[in-house]
């Protein structure tokens, strides 16, 4: 911790580690696969990335504040199921979506309450809610997928802007811009960084930890619900098992983007880069016909190389 001997430029260079990684991957894939560098493919990857990115943006706030949220995938599944379920029961699109998103916010705030008032470590608190919410999703769906019937709703995840740009990509960039501003331009964002950097010092400076944590985890829950709604729309159905393992993908995106897991240091743009890195890697492995057994090997190696390149604790 003490031996910080990089200059002022170094943090920026280090931050650019993930960007450099993405550019390298881009070049390699462009050379190796003729199908990679096409508008169609790039847009398709962006759309694939959008779900993970939406979740990872919320996760960035949680991690910056020194926490972690393992329940994002479970929130995605439950909110998606509730949205689809309400629509199937004949409630309108607005009500159903509102209920799904509202539920995501509330569930996130429950995490925040466990962490702040309950004084439970974030890892274990959200591990508990993850298990609980997965169970509730199964109970609610009875284990069967809930089909989506509303054509308007299906557009949300499957539609295009100007016949070209997939709508989920739009949502991703809108949410990114909003979150980046929230983090950099508002008092809330400042306090997030302060809590992650030194919670006690932040508290003594008058930062109110409990409301902050409710808001931070609430934001993560809300964005997971957004991802849940978009995914449900994209799949034309809500799956009880949707989103399994998404928490690890989101955390990987955040960390690959250069945000420190111990909190207080990081940026949202890095998370976008991290999510793209994962998305392009998956895409490239498929395009290059890497044997599926080796795909995991390659992914593991890439994760390790990427974090070694931008080495920090």
């Amino acid at each position, binding site marked *: 911790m003490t031996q910080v001997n990089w200059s002022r430029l170094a943090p920026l260079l280090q931050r650019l580690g993930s960007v450099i990684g993405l550019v390298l991957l881009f070049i390699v894939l462009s050379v190796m*696969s003729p199908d*990679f560098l096409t*508008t*169609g493919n790039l847009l398709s990857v962006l759309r694939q990335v959008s779900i993970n990115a939406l979740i990872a943006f919320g996760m960035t706030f949680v991690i910056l504040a020194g926490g972690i949220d393992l329940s994002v995938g479970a929130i995605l599944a439950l909110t998606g199921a509730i949205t689809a379920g309400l629509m199937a029961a004949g409630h309108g699109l607005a009500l159903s979506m509102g209920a799904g998103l509202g539920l995501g916010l509330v569930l996130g705030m429950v995490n925040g309450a466990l962490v702040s008032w309950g004084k439970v470590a974030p890892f274990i608190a959200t591990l508990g809610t993850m298990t609980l919410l997965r169970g509730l999703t*199964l109970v609610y769906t009875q284990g069967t997928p809930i089909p989506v019937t509303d054509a308007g709703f299906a557009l949300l995840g*499957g539609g295009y802007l100007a016949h070209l740009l997939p709508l989920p990509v739009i949502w991703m960039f809108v949410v990114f811009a909003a979150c980046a501003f929230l983090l950099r331009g508002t008092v809330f964002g400042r306090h997030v960084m302060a809590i992650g950097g030194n919670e006690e010092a932040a508290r003594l400076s008058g930062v109110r930890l409990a409301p902050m944590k409710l808001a931070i985890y609430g934001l993560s829950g809300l964005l997971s619900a957004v991802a849940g709604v978009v995914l449900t729309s994209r799949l*034309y159905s809500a799956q009880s098992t949707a989103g399994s393992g998404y928490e690890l993908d989101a955390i990987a995106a955040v960390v690959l983007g250069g945000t420190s897991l111990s909190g207080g240091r990081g940026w949202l743009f890095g998370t976008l880069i991290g999510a793209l890195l994962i998305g392009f890697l998956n*895409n490239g492995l*498929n395009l290059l016909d890497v044997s599926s057994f080796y795909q995991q090997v390659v992914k593991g190696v890439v994760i390790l190389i990427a974090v070694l390149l931008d080495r920090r604790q």
Partner: protein
Amino acid sequence: SQQGPGESAPASAASGGGAASTGTPVVGLALSTQNNPFFVELKNGAEQAAKSAGVQLVVVDAQDDPARQISSVEDLIQRRVSVILLNPTDSSALAGAVQSAQRANIPVVTLDRGVDGVQVASHIASDNIAGGKMAADFLAKQLDGKGNVIELQGVPGTSAARERGKGFDDAIAGTGMKIVAEQPANFDRAQGLSVTENLLQANDNVQAIFAQNDEMALGAVQALAGKNRKVLVVGFDGTPDGKAAVENGSMAATVAQQPEEIGKLGVQTAKKLIDKQPVETNIAVPLKLLTKP
């Protein structure tokens, strides 16, 4: 179908045209998972058939995640494969992906599971519900229609768990047999072992165990080992390990699917599609109840 007005073919995908530009045609196989020997065998069958049919096979794996599968189907579309063999993670989630492929003039053949709400070029599968019923009928015959049964369930919420369970439960309901416990062991051998151990503590009087796949059945066999009880274990899938267990008598039966056959037929159908020959829209691969000879 469910296409909204704004939905139309993305620019480049339209140029797909179905055939790779040079040499051997490429067929994409989108697997649901490889964390299960069943699908590994399916893949192996497809690979063998590809070799003899002279097509190149590209395999992508969704790790049981529908969203990931959509992504990998999209990747196959971008690669402009000639045919996509789709082994869906779930029958309800892939309609959009199938439509994207079809819009790019890539025919889709579904393997093992269907996709609701779309018309595909061909569907090759064995029927899980029928398989569950076969297991129930077998047990009813062995036990003269009475006795207590334990059911080991797969990962809750997956289609295999749902359909096999439904076929089995419905058929049992029509007999004098009783399902005394239904517990999840998540298609996993180690969990099959411990859940069976636990259930045997609570249920002294059990005549049969139905496991929704062979892995769990083999776990149950381990749990029974060393216990002086006669319990019939019936599995599902007919994996090599499962078949061996039936042969040596530790399992009473397994509802064998022929995953290699599914894979093989898939590639052969794809070849026909490439050669513009007609194909059957529904190819049933028979299930076989394997019992000790």
